[in-house]
């Protein structure tokens, strides 16, 4: 168990950060559009990136966007090399592992299928091969007790490395469905330039909330960010950013 040993350095590094307090280092997965990814010109973009940038500006902190290897996120956070994880980061199931901001948007896990396959509901997935990204919320949901029957009905659950290869798997017929975050699913489907090729099942696998994760105990920074987010909701900036990425206001903070 590593949770005990984590408490002590946590305080220390958060104190330290407070005294420096010049920069705001945001850890994110640059492989996770539309929340965080690399633009054609090499800059980082995404819904969460825009939010974090705005928050930093209001707090008078210099934003430092740090793409990280998702597998190393906990080590990055506990060693103090990043101040928070902000990147479509699911609160549910991780409530005790981080100090969280308020949830700022809802997310759901859905199934993406090929349109021509005539899969309309999760029942139709019986006997099919379903792909899920390793260490994703969708995988966590499928491992849960309440979804045991659904999972058992699949012919096989394939754990893949990234969504790019998962979509190639779907396209080439090796898998029949991908369980994934709806936002990412929409982005990938649009990008893949074939709204007709893929469909998202209406039936959701699970729903959950995204939040900003801080090192356990770092309430000081969490409070500042939280207050700023609320302020942004109030003056409409949050809605504006949301419209830009999702054509609607997805915000749930302060509502």
């Amino acid at each position: 168990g590593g949770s005990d040993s984590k408490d002590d350095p946590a305080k220390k590094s958060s104190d330290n950060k407070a005294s420096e307090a010049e920069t705001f280092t945001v850890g994110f997965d640059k492989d996770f559009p539309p929340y965080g990814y690399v633009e054609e010109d090499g800059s980082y973009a995404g819904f969460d990136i825009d939010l974090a940038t705005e928050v930093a500006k209001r707090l008078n902190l210099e934003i430092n966007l740090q793409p990280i290897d998702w597998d190393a996120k906990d080590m990055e956070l506990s060693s103090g090399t990043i101040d928070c994880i902000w990147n479509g980061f699911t609160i549910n199931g991780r409530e005790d592992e981080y100090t969280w901001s308020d949830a700022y948007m809802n997310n759901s896990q859905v199934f993406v299928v090929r349109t021509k396959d005539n899969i309309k509901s999760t029942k139709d997935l019986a006997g099919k091969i379903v792909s899920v990204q390793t260490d994703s919320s969708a995988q966590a949901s499928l491992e849960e007790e309440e979804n045991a029957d659904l999972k058992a009905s699949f012919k096989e659950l394939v754990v893949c490395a990234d969504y790019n290869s998962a979509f190639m798997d779907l396209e080439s017929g090796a898998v029949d469905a991908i369980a994934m975050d709806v936002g990412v699913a929409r982005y990938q489907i649009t990008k893949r330039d074939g709204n007709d090729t893929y469909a998202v099942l209406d039936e959701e696998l699970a729903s959950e909330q995204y939040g900003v994760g801080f090192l356990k105990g770092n309430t000081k920074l969490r409070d500042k960010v939280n207050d700023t987010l609320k302020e942004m909701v109030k003056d409409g900036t949050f809605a504006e950013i949301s419209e830009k990425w999702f054509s609607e206001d997805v915000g749930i903070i302060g509502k």
Partner: protein
Amino acid sequence: MSLNVLFLQLLEGMVTSVSIFVLTLVFSLPLGLVISFGRMSKNIIVRTISKAYISVMRGTPLMLQLLMVYFGPHFIFNINISSNYRFYAVIIGFVLNYAAYFAEIYRSGIESMPKGQYEAAKVLGYGKFSTFFRIIFPQVIKIILPPITNEVITLVKDTSLAFVIAVSEMFATAKALASAQASVMPYIAAAIFYYVFNLLVAKIMEIIEKKMNYYK
């Protein structure tokens, strides 16, 4: 979570890793020999093709080669691929890649054989086939064991690349566990597995080397 429990959880991944390891060796060692013949062929076309093959296989990342082998049939020939093909694709990709490395090792060994051994065999009436397999190759094996050992040890660690086409070997499992438990223990378990596996491989190779030392 104790190391014991952890190892149990990693067990399935370990079996996959070891299978990839064993199957790769079983097929790439002979294939490498065939390619080394091509590389040394007098026929310029065969030689050029073998040379290009070795160059590309050694010059591009194995990870990309695995993606190619797995997705290639669909994207190039528009064939629907089945999920069962994953594991085969991993083996094919590893075999094709390692055969290129082994081919160069064989070549260096074969080319270092003194001409006198060929000449002695020729004068004694051996044909080309028996000259190679009775006289030359057994001696080549002795010479090339150390570089082969190097490649084999690299292979132990390379098995982790299989996850790029969703074959869950040991390291992928360890990574997932590390995330889920927000702990570095699975990594440590993985390191121990690799280290022990490597020690084992090194020990076996050492024994083979010793066995070969009955002469010279």
